C-alpha cells in the first residue's frame, strides 16, 4: 500500500480517476541557501484543527492556522473522506503532522528553524484551482514569517 497494482480494481480505478494535468505555468523556486539555514513550516491537507476551531465543511478550500504554542496533541481531524486510515493519527500525531520530528531537526541543526504557525487544509473533492485564493493567502503569511520552505503531508 499504496501500490495501485496491489489494490482491488474498484479502488485502483477510483484513485486513477483523480489524475489531473499539471497546473500552468510551471512554478519552481530554486534553492538559495543550505538546509541548515532554512526556516520551515508544515502544511497538511489532513483536515486538522484544534477543537474550538470550526470543523471543515464537506468540500472546503479554506485553511486553519495551527499555533504550536498550543499542544499539538489536542489536534482533531474533520476531513470528510472516510477512505483512509485514522488509527495512525490517533496513535501519534506525527504520522500526519510531524511537528516533533521537525523540532528535533531544529535541535540537531539539520534545519535552520521552524515557524510558530503551521497550516491545515482539507484535500477532498475540489479541483486544484479551487485552492488558489486560500493557498496564496497562506503563502503571504509564510513570507511575512520569513519561512523559506514548507513540508507538505497529505492523507
Amino acid at each position, binding site marked *: *500500500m*499504496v*501500490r*495501485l497494482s496491489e489494490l482491488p480494481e*474498484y479502488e485502483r*480505478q*477510483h484513485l486513477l480517476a*483523480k*489524475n*489531473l*494535468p499539471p*497546473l500552468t505555468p*510551471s512554478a519552481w*523556486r530554486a*534553492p538559495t541557501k543550505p*538546509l541548515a539555514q*532554512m526556516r520551515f513550516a508544515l*502544511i497538511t*491537507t489532513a483536515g486538522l484543527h484544534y*477543537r474550538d476551531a470550526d*470543523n471543515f465543511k*464537506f468540500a472546503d478550500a479554506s485553511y486553519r492556522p495551527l499555533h504550536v504554542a498550543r499542544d499539538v496533541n489536542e489536534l*482533531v*481531524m*474533520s476531513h470528510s*473522506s*472516510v*477512505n483512509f*486510515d*485514522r*488509527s*495512525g493519527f*490517533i*496513535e*501519534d500525531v*506525527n*504520522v*500526519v503532522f*510531524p511537528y*516533533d*520530528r521537525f523540532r528535533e*531537526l531544529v535541535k540537531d541543526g539539520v534545519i535552520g528553524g521552524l515557524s510558530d504557525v503551521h497550516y491545515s487544509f482539507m*484535500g*477532498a*473533492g475540489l479541483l*486544484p*484551482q479551487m*485552492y*488558489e485564493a486560500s*493557498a496564496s493567502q*497562506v503563502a503571504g503569511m509564510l513570507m511575512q514569517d520569513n*519561512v*523559506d*520552505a*514548507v*513540508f*507538505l*503531508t*497529505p*492523507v
Partner: protein
Amino acid sequence: MGAIGYYLERAGIMTTGISLVRENTAALQPPRALWVPFPLGRPLGAPAQSEFQHRVIAAALDLLSAPRGPVMADFPEDAPGGEAGARVQACPVSFALADSSDVGWVSRLRSEVAQLADWYDLGQRRRGRTTFGLSGEQMEALVDYLGGLLDAPEGEVDLRRFKFALEDARTFYTEALTAQPGEHDPERVAQWVYGESELGRAIVALYQRFAGREETAQFARIVAPRQALGYSTGDEQLHTGSRDE
C-alpha cells in the same frame, strides 16, 4: 496536496513533501514530491517510529537540493509492521455478545458502547489524549441519535450534525479497539469496526439509506468507506466511480 505546493512555490516558497498515490502526483507534477508506499492516512509511515519517520523526512528534504524540477523520488522502504511479538492480534471485545436482533439499533449500539467504554478510557490514558470531539456531544447521546435514525427512519437528517456524530462514533470505536499497547494493523482495525461491530452494520445501513435517495446519493460517499461496503456486500460495483477525497 500538489495544488498547495504549486501555489506556494509560485509565490516564492520552496516546497517538498509526501505523495501517497504515485500516479496522481506523476500526473499533476508538483515541484517536489517523495512517493511513499504507505497506507492512505499515514504519510510518515507508522506511529511511534521516530527513526523511520526521520528517514522519510530526510528523503523528502533531499529533494530541496535539486537544481531544477519538477522532481519526484520513490522512498525505498515499506512502512514498518512492528515486531511479531509487538503486533496486537486480538480484538479486545467480543462483538458477538452485543448482537441481538430482537432489540432496536439504539439498544444494540448502547450495549456495544458499554462494552467499549473501559477500553476507550484506557486508550485515552495510555496516549494522554483523545481525538474524539468533533460533534460536541457525548458518546451515549451520539448512539441514541445514530441508532434513532435507523429505528425511526423517517424525516429529514441534518447532514452536518449526522456526519460529525458518525465521525466521533468511529473515533470512539477506533480508540477503544486500539487501546492496548502494541502495533495495530490498520486493515485489521477496519475489519473489526466494519466487519464485526454493530456500528459497522449501522454505518452500512445508513449509507444505503442515503445512497438510495437522489438528493443524498453524493453524501453517501462520505458515510461508509468503500472497504466497509465490500465487507458487507462483497459487491465491488457499489464502489466503482465514486470520488471523494
